[in-house]
């Protein structure tokens, strides 16, 4: 029996997601919120609810045609066709039930597989049951049915039921293999194997389960790899040999003079990898919005996507701000460059990075730079407006939703509003694109929708039965995500490791640092009290102003020991780590950002001069105009560990050092960056100078204590007793000179 879906949307002809969605859910029973629609259709009638022990069904009466009607007159509506051509059938949908009943419902009364129900169930069951419980029930149900077999009656349906259960297990294994991973012993998979061994030896299901077991065991023993769900793990301190590349290569890209199309493609490639790896059910309100620290891994793939989004925004912000002395016109070139990249992202239909860039440009520290924005050409300003309009929050983000519906699974970007002059021009210039693109959505909208569904619709109905209608509603959103994931396969983008290195090398400023920088570029017109205080500190500092750290870091990729680390492929992993820390960190004033240092945009303080490898340290260029320099330095800290030494590579983390930070605070910031736990008092911090190391006193103001005549490279190491320390210093000195 096929169940027709009454489309829940308006009657316009549509393509893209909406059309495909109804294809995908063509057997879907959307009677929840759409019940009224179903009831109002001539062939469907809501009959009522039916209660049985442990379940409530919604029952519809549906007219089914048993003769192919000859269409005599097109004006005839279905209802007017002779009654002789129709019969009425009852269709039941589970509205709510106990877990047992819900599992039973995987097969219809006739024992047929109800594929939509199976999809909804498998996509959402985690919010009301454990994997093991569902598997248990499924297998037990099979065994019960097998017992029935002894009785001569009803063996046909029983047989059919069992076939359906096996089909469900196939779907489950194929679609959600991660449910069965459960390292190290894979209990669910073992249970399934024991079952197939007994009941279905030699079956396809049995061999499939064996394959999965072999795969998981190999995973466990061999390379752990970035399998789905694996956002955890530390950003490796050591690198695979192939990842090590001389640092000066990073300066290949420098905004604003970058290939925009290429940048857009590379951002899309990064997003695409994460999006394809996204596990849709991790977006469910019950998982994502209720996750806490203990369960953060439950939503690891979502978090990875969010982190990448933030990472892109932060790069926009920092590249615009990081050179305080740029002329407004030069800074506006950087804005324009990001806008050009954003425009290409629009063509690529990558709405995630597109929104990330727009958000970065609209972030307060960038957005408030009026002089800079004023230098933007009219075309670029218009382009910004048009792109920003896509993400307007108005009318529940209508513009964005509509666009995603239309273009989601279309091959090209071709939906442009009447007022979007710049985008129209672009599409016109490009003509018809040769390659088709996938789509990467901005995930936040889905996350909000799922959170709201989870909040608004109760988990259980009156008698404590699981509200399955809620799961159907959630599945509508999950199905969209899945569809788009499928569409994302249309992207074919090459990997550029150089881009990844550039991406990793950009310093990330936290909220306050960014604002501070922004205010140095353009002082606030109406500074409230707190900010005024800052200014006073500022002006007091003039006498002590040192040469600018930004400039000095630019020359600092000196010796062969200091080289870019963290391979290209790790970007998303590391970033997720970084960002996991940072929201809570926003509160400390001056802690800061990391990422292996040596930022291209930083080095551009040298006006394009490439820092040469092996350059003698100690030749830090003094900042030309000390008075306008920032009141902080960016210092680079490495942690002394055996691993680093043997690899001959030093992993640096950049941190920001403001003028009121004392040693313990700086050590704390460094520890945070380097992912070290423990008591800051257990560590010492030393500046690496050409012929020695200067250990900072326990409570020094580091900003004034550092020797700015040299590179701001620091080494953090566990505190040992005094004598040891001296020896260590000697050792380290030998190694570095």
């Amino acid at each position, binding site marked *: 029996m096929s169940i027709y879906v009454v489309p829940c949307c308006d009657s316009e002809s549509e393509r893209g997601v909406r059309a495909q969605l109804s294809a995908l859910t063509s057997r879907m029973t959307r009677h929840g919120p759409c019940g009224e629609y179903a009831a109002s259709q001539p062939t469907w009638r809501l009959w009522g609810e039916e209660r049985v022990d442990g379940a409530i069904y919604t029952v519809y009466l549906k007219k089914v045609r048993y003769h192919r009607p000859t269409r005599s007159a097109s004006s005839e509506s279905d209802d007017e066709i002779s009654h002789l051509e129709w019969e009425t059938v009852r269709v039941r949908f589970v509205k709510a039930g106990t877990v047992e009943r819900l599992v039973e419902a995987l097969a219809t009364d006739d024992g047929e597989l109800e594929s939509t129900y199976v999809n909804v169930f498998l996509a959402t069951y985690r919010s009301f049951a454990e994997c093991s419980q569902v598997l248990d029930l499924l297998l037990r149900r099979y065994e019960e049915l097998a017992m029935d077999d002894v009785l001569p009656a009803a063996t046909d349906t029983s047989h059919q039921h069992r076939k359906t259960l096996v089909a469900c297990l196939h779907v489950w294994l194929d679609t959600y293999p991660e449910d069965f991973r459960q390292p190290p012993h894979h209990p669910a998979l073992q249970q399934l194997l024991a079952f197939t061994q007994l009941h279905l030896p030699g079956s396809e299901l049995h061999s499939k389960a064996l394959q999965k077991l072999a795969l998981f065991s190999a995973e466990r023993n061999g390379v752990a790899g970035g399998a789905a769900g694996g956002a955890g793990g530390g950003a490796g301190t050591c690198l695979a040999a192939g990842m090590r590349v001389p640092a000066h290569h990073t300066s290949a890209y420098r905004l604003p003079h970058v290939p925009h199309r290429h940048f857009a493609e590379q951002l899309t490639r990064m997003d695409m990898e994460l999006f394809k790896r996204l596990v849709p059910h991790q977006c469910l309100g019950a998982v994502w919005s209720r996750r806490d620290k203990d369960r953060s891994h439950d939503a690891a793939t979502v978090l990875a996507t969010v982190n990448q989004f933030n990472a892109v925004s932060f790069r926009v912000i920092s590249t615009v701000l990081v050179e305080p002395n740029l002329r407004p016109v030069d800074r506006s070139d950087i804005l324009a460059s990001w806008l050009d990249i954003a425009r290409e992202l629009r063509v690529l239909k990558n709405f995630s990075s597109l929104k990330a860039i727009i958000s970065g440009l609209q972030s307060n520290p960038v957005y408030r730079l009026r002089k800079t924005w004023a230098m933007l050409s009219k075309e670029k300003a218009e382009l910004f407006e048009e792109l920003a309009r896509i993400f307007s929050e108005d009318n529940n983000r209508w513009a964005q939703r509509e666009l995603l519906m239309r273009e989601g699974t279309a091959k090209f970007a071709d939906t442009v509003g009447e007022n979007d002059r710049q985008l129209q021009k672009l599409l016109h210039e490009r003509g018809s694109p040769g390659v088709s693109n996938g789509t990467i959505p901005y995930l936040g909208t889905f996350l*909000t929708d799922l959170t709201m569904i989870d909040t608004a619709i109760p988990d259980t109905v009156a008698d404590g039965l699981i509200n399955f209608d809620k799961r159907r509603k959630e599945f509508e959103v999950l199905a969209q995500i899945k569809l788009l994931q499928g569409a994302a396969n249309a992207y074919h983008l090459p990997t550029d490791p150089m881009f990844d290195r550039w991406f990793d090398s950009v310093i990330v400023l936290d909220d306050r640092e960014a604002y501070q920088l922004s205010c140095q570029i353009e002082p606030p017109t109406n500074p409230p009290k707190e900010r005024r205080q800052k200014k006073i500190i500022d002006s007091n500092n003039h006498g002590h102003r040192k040469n600018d750290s930004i400039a000095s870091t630019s020359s600092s990729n000196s010796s062969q020991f200091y080289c870019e680390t963290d391979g290209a492929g790790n970007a998303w992993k590391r970033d997720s780590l970084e960002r996991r820390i940072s929201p809570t960190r926003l509160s400390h004033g001056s802690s800061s950002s990391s990422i292996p240092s040596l930022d291209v945009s930083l080095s551009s303080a040298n006006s394009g001069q490439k820092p040469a490898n092996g350059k003698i340290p100690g030749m830090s260029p003094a900042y030309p105009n000390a008075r306008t320099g920032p009141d902080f330095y960016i210092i680079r800290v490495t942690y002394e560990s055996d691993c680093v030494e043997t690899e001959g590579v030093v992993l640096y983390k950049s941190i920001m050092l403001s003028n009121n930070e004392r040693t313990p605070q700086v050590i704390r910031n460094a520890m945070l960056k380097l992912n070290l736990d423990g008591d800051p008092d257990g560590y010492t911090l030393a500046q690496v100078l050409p012929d020695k190391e200067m250990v900072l006193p326990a409570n020094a103001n580091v900003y004034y204590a550092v020797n700015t005549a040299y590179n701001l490279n620091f080494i953090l190491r566990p505190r040992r007793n005094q004598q040891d320390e001296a020896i260590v210093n000697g050792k380290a000195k030998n190694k570095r000179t």
Partner: protein
Amino acid sequence: MREYKIVVLGSGGVGKSALTVQFVQGIFVEKYDPTIEDSYRKQVEVDGQQCMLEILDTAGTEQFTAMRDLYMKNGQGFVLVYSITAQSTFNDLQDLREQILRVKDKDDVPMVLVGNKCDLEAERVVGKQQGANLANHFNCVFMETSAKAKISVNEVFYDLVRQINKKSPKEEKKKSNIRKPICQLL
């Protein structure tokens, strides 16, 4: 009819979405669609005046930190929500408020501090006085609410409307409307 853009902010899990749903829908409904145009719009009468409230709820996107500024820029009034059962959610608000003031470039922005989940008295860890003190420090109104038990939910939004009215009476509204497409800073 005057429109009010209200932004609901706070850490994940404080019940922001519940407040919004409770206010907009009135009841926890079985048939609910978060994707339609007016899912978060509600017309109310405050002090004899019809108002259209558009609620921007950040639920589910708390971790998209880069987007907060935009929410803040667009909002006229702010609901800062914590849960009385989680100290950390209370602590997070100081930063959020500072960020709002920075983005708005003002010292005084229509705002209500809300301690949600006051039906869970047994699990309370943030005292009522603590909330009141913070509100005092913020110089804003404080309320304890329960979205679940429907306590003081509407009051939060009504109070914000009054605050917005007070700070920018009607005439100014037009001006702010013209200024709205601020993106063009030209």
